């Protein structure tokens, strides 16, 4: 049951993350809010700290893969160039998305479980 909830949290996280990224919200909102919400959902649904961390990272990785594939199918050569050419700058989405989602996931889990004692 717990595993199913964790999985559901990850799936929900992915869906929400992508929905925010694809929304017409301003870029400054989209890029910051999407990984936060995605990771948060995965973390809230997790049963252990490890699951929260890995689950929220899974959300980020999945979203990054979906984004890359979406762009690749839209314009294959150009999308590969967009990832290959900018060097360090290509890693910014990976860093921001992963760190933000993982922090949100683990943070949400810790706050949730820490609060259980009160």
């Amino acid at each position, binding site marked *: 049951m717990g595993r199913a909830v964790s999985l559901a949290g990850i799936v929900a996280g992915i869906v929400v993350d*992508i929905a925010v*990224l*694809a929304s017409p919200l*301003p*870029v*400054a*909102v*989209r*890029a*910051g*809010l999407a*990984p*936060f919400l995605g*990771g*948060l959902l995965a973390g809230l649904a997790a049963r252990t700290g490890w699951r929260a961390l890995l689950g929220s990272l899974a959300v980020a990785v999945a*979203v*990054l893969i979906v*984004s*890359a594939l*979406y*762009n690749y199918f*839209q*314009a294959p*050569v*150009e*999308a*590969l*160039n*967009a*990832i290959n*050419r*900018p*060097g360090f*700058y*290509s890693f*910014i*989405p*990976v860093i*921001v*998305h992963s*760190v*933000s*989602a*993982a*922090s*949100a996931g*683990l*943070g*949400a*889990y*810790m*706050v*949730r*479980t*820490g*609060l*259980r*004692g*009160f």
Partner: protein
Amino acid sequence: MASAKRVVAGLLLLVLAVLPLIGFNATGTGRTLAFFADPLKGLWGQGLAAAPLRGELSLPGLHGRVVVVRDSYGVPHLFAENEHDLFQAFGFIQACDRLWQMDLQRRIVEGRLAELVGEPGLSSDKWMRMLGLGRVAEESWRLVVRLAEEGDEWARRTRAAVEAYTLGVNQCIDYMARTGRLPLEYRLLGVDPEPWSPVDSMAVAKLIDYVLSFNDNDLLWGLVASRTGGWVLGLYMDYAEWVYREGRVIVGKGESLYRNESLAGFRPEQPVAHPRDSVVLDYTVDLEGLGEALKGFIEAKMEAESIAAPLYWALREGFSNNWVVGGSLTASGHPLLANDPHLALTAPPVWYEVHLVSRDTGLNVYGVAFPGVPFVVIGRNQYISFGYTNSMVDVVDLYYYVWNGSKYYYNGSWLEPRRSVEEILVRRGNGYDRVELEVFETMPGRIVEFDTGAGKYRVAVKATTLMPEPIAVWAYMVNHARSVYDYLEAQRYFYSPIQNAVVADGENILYSPSGLVPIRTRLPLVDVGDGRLVPNTGFLPFNGSRAEGEWIGFLSFKDIPRLLNPGRGFVATANNMIIHNYTLDGAPVYLQWSFLDSYRWMRIAELVEEKSRGKGLTAEDMRAIQMDVKSKAAEELVPVLVALAEKAGGLGGLERKALDMLKNWDYVMDADKPEPSIAYAWLFVALNTTWSSVAEKAGLRLGYHELLHVLRLEMLEYMLKTSKGGEYLEKLTGMSPEQLASQTLRKAIEYLEKYYGSREPRDWVWGRAHRVLIAHAMGKLLPWLNYPVEPAPGGPFTVNVAPMIGLGDPVTHGPSVRLVADMAPGATGLIVLPGGDSGHPFSKYYDNQYLDWLRGVYHPVVLASDPGDVEGVVLVLNPGS
């Protein structure tokens, strides 16, 4: 307790998670960072921004279908049923490839750069507002409209083409905004493009005009002569005479000028003056006073241009080559034409390669257009080919005025200048500051506000660049021309920048400087040494307060020196001297003072003559000449310097070794050889040594690129090869030619040792010091936007030009396109760009021609009239709502 700690840790993690959201929204650069961080529509999604290449799109306003075939080089071939559709589609396609570049160019001219980049753009904006170039662009468009309304058929058609193009550009802007395809640069700066207008196309044309003709020569000569003495001008005059005697002129001795009394004048009509109408005044110029008046002006101009320089046009050395060969010297018996205009090498390139076909008028033209301008500027159609170099004709004058704080002194009276206030927006964070600039206008031109000498003087400018002109009509007509005579008819609409046009049709070749040549009057005398007094025909700034040097009209259209099918069989131009002692009814015509070194011209002429022997020249020969890297400068100067250095004696081992290498060198500037480095370093040091005292006195940096237009290498050659020149050399440097040669060799060797970190001359490989850097406007911040840095063959004086200032400085200037047109029936030609047609850094066409350009691999010019005859991916633009 443990739980509390976990809660705190959890809260801290949540804060960390939410930091990007806060940061992206709170800081000025937040949107830019967010753009990088967004994996879906941000940096990774920028592949989508590349122009649509295939499929179908609807464009409201089209009357019929337009087929756009994108060939394997990324060049669009547009096939339309009518010109309206053709130019509308061209606007759409070109903007989808180059919108950011187009936008940047118009903003520079209109003085609106600071709206994009903030404070750093302000000095450029002030400069452009003072010149009023944006206003001139508006007037140029009004002129086209007026001519069209007055019944000028060519103007009417031009107007329709520009308006259709504008519609297409704006449809592209809407399309890109709607589909999330806006170019990367907008996303980085966090701004959106504004709609395009016909005036913006005129503004782009004016920017090119400014770059090509608005030089500092008068100013530099004024500063040099005022601090060193008028005899420096005498040196230049003697040198020019020597250049003529050596036969290094475009219109050579014995060539008959093409004169046709039935040629009509400029359109619309311009005031015509005869050179004999010039009045020479009876006093000599106070050179010291001139220097005082110009103090500060040069720095102001340099500062104003410094922002636009790295951003865009920058190193505008104005080098270019073109030559046209008549059928008597070619293998086919029909003319060949070559052109490689040398401009700043930028990513994306200055030019946009395109093929335009319209069935209704039979238009079928291939070549390069400036992004923002709807017509092919260099290229060919089925009937003629056309190419340009900068003619170096003097079309800019400076006037200094005594200024009392609010009025200027003119011819005995204090006059009130016309005043206007310009408001400049300067970007700051998410908002704008407003800066007001008061602009003054005197009788000859606009006053440049910068303080020039404790407020006592102001400087005004008069230039053909600042005149509105129907140049768009010229470009449209040239695209439709069917003979060299049609070209001449089109040239009536061309005022500035004055260019050496070479044109060929199936049978004829034409050389025709295009543009207005001012005739000045009230010319003061200048003491140029040796008791010689010559009138200041425009080579020095004028004293505006004494009403000197005012323009009374222009050389009549028919009197511009032209060559049609010259006896020599070909015409070559390379920014060198056009003609010497040109007179009309005995009165001297002042065309130019400063021209560039003749070395590229000499090599072109030599190769054309050599290769035309036997079977005659082919298009492949023309390509080979464009790629030639043998340095005529080295061939003329190095043996002289070697002999002088050996004569001087006292050479060290390393110097001896270097001399031996130079003696066995073929003067070919290959990237993998060390000899070019030795020759370059020696000539560079010799040039600096010769002119350093002059530059120092004038308060100028020798590295300032435009100074090299004034104090040049060919003058050193003159000084080393003639006895009179030797006297000048001694006056300049205090050294004999032998001393100069040996001292500068020593310094050059030290320079090379230091740069390469080796005492072994074999290590001094040219390509290690001489590399080409083609940079994007934002390339300093984001180097991955630049093209890869590569070793470059050639040098500043080779036909395949690759100039740099000192060893290791990047080559950022060179052939901005290379075109060879073959006018034989069924033949077309060859072309290559230094980059690619797309301005989108992730497009496969962003830099796909770059290495081809570097290695001299050209692709064919295509003049197919049916889309089925062109291989590539197809995009169909349909009429739609």
